[in-house]
């Protein structure tokens, strides 16, 4: 049960009555009895909450930044009308609104309520409980009860870098031979024979085929297809650091901004975790590689395998990737590179392009990846992609005062470490892509296209 403000108001009026009554003791008893009786009547005649039934429908999958609508149908099989308020409780980062919905369901009928979800971070959000407060006819007291009406919404990574996809696909088509100027060297895989036209490279004339026919025949080449790309996402502690500006506000940013009790944080609003930027880049690469005819697998790993997507068909690849990525959060543990390499080697039997999305942190790489790097680079082509921090670059550029120069020196030290790690990786034959958050996805796609063009896959 629950009381309303009206009950308190009646009691407050009772103060005046008691004060002015000739027999205040009797008046007090009378007012209290009357109020208790009215509350009892309200409780008895309020619509029952327990027999209510709820049915849900609506969005199950949305991208971060989109708005989901979840419908809640309230069915009232009882004999009395249920009038009052309903709260559908979701976790705070689901951004459910409105918080409390007015409810009025006559006996034996059903009503549809619409709840809008505006999630502030990736992952699965599930409804916790539906609570109904059913007011009595006098509005003094209400029956209250909670129901479990399960529904969950999976918030997928937003894939913001898909805007770069058309231009990269155009470059891919150039490589692919659908471009008129098809020349030798743009690929290593034999494609077809065709008649010689003026302008073709004479070195590509196939003399044996020419001898069998009356025309001069040239061979055409195209980039390799059906190669394997394994995208490995490091979800260890280094992927939790936030960089850049969040294109879609995340839960952390919201916690700093809102709330009366939360002390406003003077520091700048943190951006997205490296993990989210890496996911964005991985999605662009996967989309591009799938169009290029390569087989894309995905592995997320810190100390254990967090997600594994393999053998997805070209059309389903992106949806299965985002579904696998959605619940992944950065774990605050040091990634186990040995286990990661073992997982890669056990899963990738044939030679493939391993794209490792991690951070170029010299301390963790020295202890983790560097010792096991030869195992990996001897069997596979390794491409390490890392998100650099634009804030470090900004700190390195500011040199007006002594304080800023000290900061700039620290930033220079960090960048030096990064460059040294990059140089060491390159000496091992590892491709390295190090780009700020906004550029990491196109830079990774370009690196992939360059490898493809060079026939190194």
């Amino acid at each position, binding site marked *: 049960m*629950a*009381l309303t403000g009206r*009950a*308190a108001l009646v*009691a407050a009026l*009772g*103060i005046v009555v*008691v*004060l002015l009554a000739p027999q*205040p*003791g009797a*008046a*007090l008893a009378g007012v*209290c009895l009357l109020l208790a009786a009215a509350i009892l009547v309200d409780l008895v005649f309020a619509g029952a909450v*327990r027999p*209510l039934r709820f*049915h849900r429908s609506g969005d199950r999958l949305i991208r971060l930044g989109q708005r989901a609508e979840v419908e809640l149908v309230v069915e009232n099989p009882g004999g009395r009308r249920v009038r009052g308020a309903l709260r559908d*409780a979701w*976790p*705070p*980062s689901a951004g459910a609104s409105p918080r409390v919905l007015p409810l009025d369901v006559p006996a034996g009928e059903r009503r549809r309520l619409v709840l809008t979800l505006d999630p502030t*971070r990736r992952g699965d959000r599930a409804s916790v*409980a539906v*609570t109904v*407060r059913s007011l009595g006819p006098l509005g003094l007291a209400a029956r*209250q*009860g*909670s*129901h*479990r009406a*399960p529904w969950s919404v999976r918030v997928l990574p937003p894939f913001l870098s898909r805007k770069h996809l058309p231009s990269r696909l155009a470059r891919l088509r150039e490589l692919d031979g659908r471009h008129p100027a098809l020349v030798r060297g743009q690929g290593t895989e034999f494609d077809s024979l065709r008649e010689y036209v003026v302008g073709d490279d004479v070195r590509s004339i196939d003399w044996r085929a020419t001898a069998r026919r009356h025309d001069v025949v040239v061979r055409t080449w195209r980039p390799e297809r059906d190669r394997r790309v394994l995208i490995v996402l490091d979800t260890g502690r280094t992927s*939790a*650091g*936030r*960089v850049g500006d969040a294109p879609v506000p995340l839960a*952390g940013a919201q*916690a700093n901004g809102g709330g009366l009790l939360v002390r406003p944080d003077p*520091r700048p609003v*943190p*951006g997205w*975790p490296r993990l989210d930027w890496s996911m964005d880049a991985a999605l662009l690469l996967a989309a591009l590689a799938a169009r290029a005819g390569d087989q894309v697998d995905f592995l997320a790993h810190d100390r254990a395998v967090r997600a594994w997507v393999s053998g997805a068909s070209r059309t389903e690849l992106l949806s299965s990737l985002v579904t696998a990525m959605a619940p992944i*959060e*950065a774990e*605050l543990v040091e990634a186990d590179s040995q286990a990661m390499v073992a997982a890669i080697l056990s899963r990738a039997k044939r030679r493939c392009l391993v794209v490792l999305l991690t951070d170029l942190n010299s301390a963790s790489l020295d202890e983790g990846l560097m010792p096991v790097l030869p195992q990996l680079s001897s069997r596979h082509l390794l491409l390490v992609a890392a998100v650099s*921090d634009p*804030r470090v670059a900004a*700190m390195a550029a500011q*040199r007006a005062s*002594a*304080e800023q*120069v*000290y*900061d700039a*020196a*620290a930033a*220079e*030290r*960090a*960048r*030096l470490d990064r460059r040294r790690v990059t140089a060491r990786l390159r000496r091992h034959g590892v491709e390295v892509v190090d780009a700020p958050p906004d550029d990491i996805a196109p830079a990774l796609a370009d690196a992939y296209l360059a490898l493809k063009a060079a026939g190194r896959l």
Partner: protein
Amino acid sequence: MSVDLRPGETQGSHSTSPTVCSVWRTGRAAVALGLVILAVGVLITLFSPEQGESRPLDPADTSLAGSKALAQLLRDRGVTVDRVDSVEAAVAKATEPGRLLLVTATWFTDDPALARVPGDRVIVGSTRLPSQLAPGVRDLPGGSRERSREPECPLPAATAAGSVFIGGSVLTGPPGSTGCYPAGKGWSLVSYPHAGGTITVVGSGEFMSNLRLSEDGNAALALNLLGTAKAVTWLVEPDQPAVGDLAGPEGKSVHDLMPPGIPWAVGMAAITVLLLALWRGRRLGPVVMERLPVVVRAAETVEGRGRLYRARRARASAADSLRAGTIDRVTPRLGLGSGAERHEVVAALAVRTGQDPQQVGAALYGPAPVDDAGLVALAGYLDAIERTVSEH
């Protein structure tokens, strides 16, 4: 084990609120425990002796500080004990001869009307000596510890009683008085004749209390002092009324002036506050908790290192970092490999920028700046070199 697979049931909603039965089932142990505690409390209150506020040396008080035992002893010996709590009542009792006035609350009884009461007088207490009731008696400063003392005096009442638990005020009497139980420079008991009666002043009344009466010669001394009279007027301190009951100048207390509805209205207001609290305190649905990802900016380690440099004024390390960064960026533009020697870098840079090789060399490989201004200047110079190299 059976599984219910009716359609709609697996996806449907179900109530999670407790039913009356489940509330009773989960709460009955607590209710039983509460009832047991309540019953024990009631029993203890019913069977424990009444422990009112203790009133020291009150003939009606049964607590350890009271004196009901002494009053009972006196009554057994045929002495009438009249307990009065005002000077007027005490004066009104003083009609018959042979009545003794016992004053145990000395701080409010220093009244001329009381001083005119004839007959014997016993004044007990250490707080303040009533100079009008006991003229000539002086209270020496300091006081003495209450303990068992020997009489050491010719007073029959005291010698018969022997040692007594006494102390308190140190008294000296007027000429002709008898002092007993020496304490400090005076006595704990002073007795002298005055206006047809005997005035006895005792430094402390502890020996008359229920606690001490059975020890030493306490009871004997008390009976010797009081039991000789036919009746005792026992003047105790009056009950203190509550502040609200004190009468004002009109002769009316605050309660008299208040409209009769006010206390009831206050009760109603309390009920209102209770209802308000119930209204606001009832939450619509549960508090939802969520595990949020940690919010840590990746640049925090770099900022921390910068603050360390600043705090320790680590100019050498800072300058090293800045120089290494500049050399790293400049050498590829100069057409030099990463393993270029110092003099090669300096020479190539001097040629490219048109500056003095000495100056360039000092900036890139010289000693660390001695102050912050030097560090800022070095950073500016390195910036300028880089800019020139990238422009040309």
